[in-house]
């Protein structure tokens, strides 16, 4: 009989001491704006958004089997919507066409933010009991904003330095450029760099500083290292190394590719003399001959000669020049004895900034970066044979935000859950 008896359940008491955003209705103001805001505060909406976010993150992870991590980040997480291919859900041996639209990371994030802010504005009342909830949600706002700031403003590049030499530029490996270098000035090289986005458009490229126009015959987003052509392979190149070696297209690199960590594009470009239109030849340029060979301390420029002046042409990672020069004094790479397991890497570098008139000498190692003038230098790799170092240089104005957010959310949760655990245990002890 007792079991039939429906007393006010202790479970309901527990709920009552929960934040209970849905149950405490503020019966104040009734403008349409307020109604709209109140609609935004629903916990059901929160749960729906969590489900959407869950699905998006899951799909964005599966998609990395086929696509590079940065492509996925741009398509799935830093976008307002995404077309998710059905292919990602089945083994790749079975081909499945088709895709479906889905809200992207920025859209879901914005909705969650709106939902959260609306709930706290509409139901704002400060009590000690609710302070944990307020703090942790404020921390979450900081976290979401930090991802936005990172997405919008962060920039990273690779600084490669050969032992004993210096460098004053970083390379952005996910962006390429066609660089045409005029080495005739003994003091400095004059460089015209054509960005990848322009190269992909094709057509004829003209620039005032160049004595020739460039027609893009073919652009390969990713390619194998140029090799001897087989029989019956048509070769568009009529000059340079491309006459004997051809570029073979390759699918864009994915996160799972064990052989390549980034794309190696190649292009066939026809050079025509300005004015006369006289053909200077069609050249093959490949980033294997710049980015890859440079890791081994070499390169293979294509030489285009116009009226006794020879230009060097490269297809290479986009370079960003810096106001400072970094010299690699010593690179150290340790192994555990008797094995090829890496124990540690470190680079003894000297940084000279001619604008800020600063000089620093410091050792950068794994997990111990150098922070300088808003940029951070991390030990990220090394050249084959330990010939030199590769440092990742990152500028992210929002880098401190996650630290703050973590403290706020952790503090808020510990306070809130601690309060409830305490209440619960006291009630249990009383029973």
């Amino acid at each position: 009989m007792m079991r039939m008896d429906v007393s006010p359940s202790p479970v309901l008491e527990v709920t009552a001491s929960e934040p209970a955003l849905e149950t405490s209705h503020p019966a104040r103001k009734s403008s349409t704006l307020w109604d709209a805001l109140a609609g935004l505060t629903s916990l059901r909406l929160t749960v729906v958004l969590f489900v959407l976010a869950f699905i998006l993150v899951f799909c964005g992870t599966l998609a990395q089997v086929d696509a590079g991590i940065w492509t996925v980040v741009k398509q799935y997480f830093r976008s307002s919507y995404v077309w998710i291919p059905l292919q990602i859900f089945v083994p790749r041996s079975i081909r499945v066409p088709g895709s479906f639209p889905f809200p992207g990371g920025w859209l879901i994030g914005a909705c969650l933010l709106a939902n959260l802010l609306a709930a706290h504005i509409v139901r704002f009342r400060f009590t000690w009991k609710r302070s944990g909830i307020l703090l942790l949600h404020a921390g979450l706002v900081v976290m979401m904003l930090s991802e936005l700031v990172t997405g919008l403003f962060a920039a990273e590049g690779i600084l490669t330095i050969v032992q004993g030499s210096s460098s004053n530029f970083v390379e952005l490996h996910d962006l390429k450029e066609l660089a045409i270098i005029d080495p005739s000035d003994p003091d400095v090289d004059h460089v015209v760099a054509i960005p990848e986005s322009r190269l992909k458009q094709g057509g004829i490229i003209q620039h005032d500083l160049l004595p020739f126009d460039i027609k893009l015959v073919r652009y390969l987003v990713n390619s194998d290292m140029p090799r001897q052509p087989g029989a019956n392979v048509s070769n568009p190149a009529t000059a340079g190394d491309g006459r004997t070696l051809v570029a073979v297209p390759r699918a864009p690199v994915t996160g799972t590719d064990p052989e390549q960590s980034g794309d190696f594009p190649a292009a066939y470009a026809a050079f025509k003399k300005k004015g006369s239109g006289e053909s200077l030849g069609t050249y093959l340029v490949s980033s294997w001959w710049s980015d890859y060979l440079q890791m081994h301390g070499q390169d293979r420029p294509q030489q285009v000669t116009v009226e006794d002046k020879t230009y060097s042409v490269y297809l290479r990672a986009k370079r960003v020049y810096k106001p400072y020069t970094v010299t690699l004094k010593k690179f150290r790479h340790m192994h555990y004895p008797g094995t090829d397991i890496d124990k540690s890497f470190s680079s003894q570098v000297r940084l000279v900034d001619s604008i800020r008139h600063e000089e620093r000498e410091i050792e950068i190692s794994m997990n111990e970066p150098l922070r300088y003038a808003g940029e951070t230098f991390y030990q990220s790799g090394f050249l084959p044979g330990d010939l030199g170092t590769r440092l990742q240089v990152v500028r992210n104005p929002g880098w401190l935000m996650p630290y703050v957010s973590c403290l706020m959310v952790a503090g808020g949760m510990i306070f809130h859950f601690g309060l409830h655990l305490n209440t619960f245990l006291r009630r249990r002890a009383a029973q």
Partner: protein
Amino acid sequence: MNRFTRYLPGLVVVLALAYLVIHALSTGDPERFHLQGLAGIPVSENGRVKPLDTVARNTLMLLGKRRFFTDAEKRPQPAIRWLMDAMAGKADQHEVFRIEDDQLLRLLNLKPKPLFWRYSPEEIAPRFAALQGQARQALALPENERDLFNVNVLRLYKQLEIYVALRELEPSSLLLVPPRSEDEEWQALRDLAAQIKNNENPAAGAVYHLLTAYADDKPEEFNQQLASYQILLGQRLPDRVAKVEFELFFNRFEPFYSCSLFYVIMFLLVCVSWAAYTESLNRAAFWLGVLTFVLHSWGILARMYILHRPPIINLYSTAIFIGWGCLFLGLTIEAIFRSGIGNAVGAVAGALTSVIAHNLSTDGDTMEMMRAVLDTNFWLATHVVIINFGYAATFVAGIVGAIFILMGVFTRALQRDRWRMLGQVIYGIVCFATLLSFIGTVLGGIWADQSWGRFWGWDPKENGALLIVLWNALILHARWGGMIKQRGLAVLAVAGNIVTAWSWFGVNMLGVGLHSYGFMEGATFWLLTFDVSQLALIGIGSLPLTYWKSLQPAARRGYAYLCSSYWLAAHGKCEDNGSKFAAPVVNSQPTE
């Protein structure tokens, strides 16, 4: 009987302790060769100084998934004997290579040996050329195009290479000779022939004579050499020797093996206590759980002492740690609610993680050196420990959810008090799991920011952790919004098991990203099996409440449908009404 039940918990604990003491003290039979003394000499392998015994056990594990072998008379023999036989060229008849693939067995003209599956080099030798040919073909294929046969051929081929390298005394990673001074490294014996000849390196000479004495079957000379080498080591590397001795004890004591045994006993005790309603069996399970917890903790601490590292350094140690975390939470639940649920959770999680850990330990030494990027005790101690504790908490919530569903649907044991209590447990644990998985995930981001300047890279392992946070947050918000109550909590917590298992193992199988340190074949099958089982539980848990046995009135079961309406109307008020998983509203009869 009464007295018996009162002393039962004590008796169980005393028996378990006695087992442990006997286990710790047994050092094997006395032998002609003092192999157990040899087992404790320090060597350097894969960059770590360890007892020779560890090398022997791990190599056997790598070849045959066992840490001992059986001799011609089918008697179990210690790994160190196999290692010495192998180095002396006398191990060709020991059956240690595990081959299960039927195609591979046919290739090698071998008869299947069900339940044993182990073969000797001598048995494989006649068809070695065929194996070599197949291995060459397999090696020429790109990694992602190799089928199971190719993979198994390559594995066996590599295992034989390891064996041959041992026989030739030249595995590149095994260095037998200690440094003579601070600025020297460990060295391989085969590089020191000149020094041995000229008597320049006493340690190298001693090791060489040990091996030849064993090979020439001269026990007295062997034992004499061993005794003097031990004295030499004690003078030269006193710190090392002490630590290596400790590791040798750890190897023999096998704390995690005893733990897995205790988990099974604990689970049986809880099951019997539920079936027979004997409280004392449950108390016995609890105290056995406490003892297991102490033992499990000791095992983790011992590994930390040996390695000078925080508890988790690789996939194997996550399994050990998660089992420990689940047991801790289970015992805490038991201490608060005393209903057997906490014991069951701890026992089930402990047993399952033991099995997982065993299967993750077949790749060689589980105490490996950390690659440069992971070489930071601070982040290993914070991010890695917290995130894995978060996994443990999410699993505990999921296991309680599973118990809720099974108990509710198939038994009458889930009456109202217990229904509510389990709801409270799941809710509390999910709160805890949210806290841990969030902090752990963010700390991981901060580590990434410290080491390569990217707080969040949307890397698969990071995404896996984020999914756990999202899932737990979803459960909590659905609960606070009144969309679910106890049953919804249970069902969603079981789904949390799938999410956590995917994050723990699934993302490694995608083979993407910076975190994929564990590659496992065959594990995919088990992960999918686990997922299917959890989906089945979710399906059962989503059955209309009329099918839940615990909600059917005890008498007149034949009229269950009609009668249940009466009970449900009363019950539905404080249960799942209005939720996604709601019971059908059956002819409500207000009883208030």
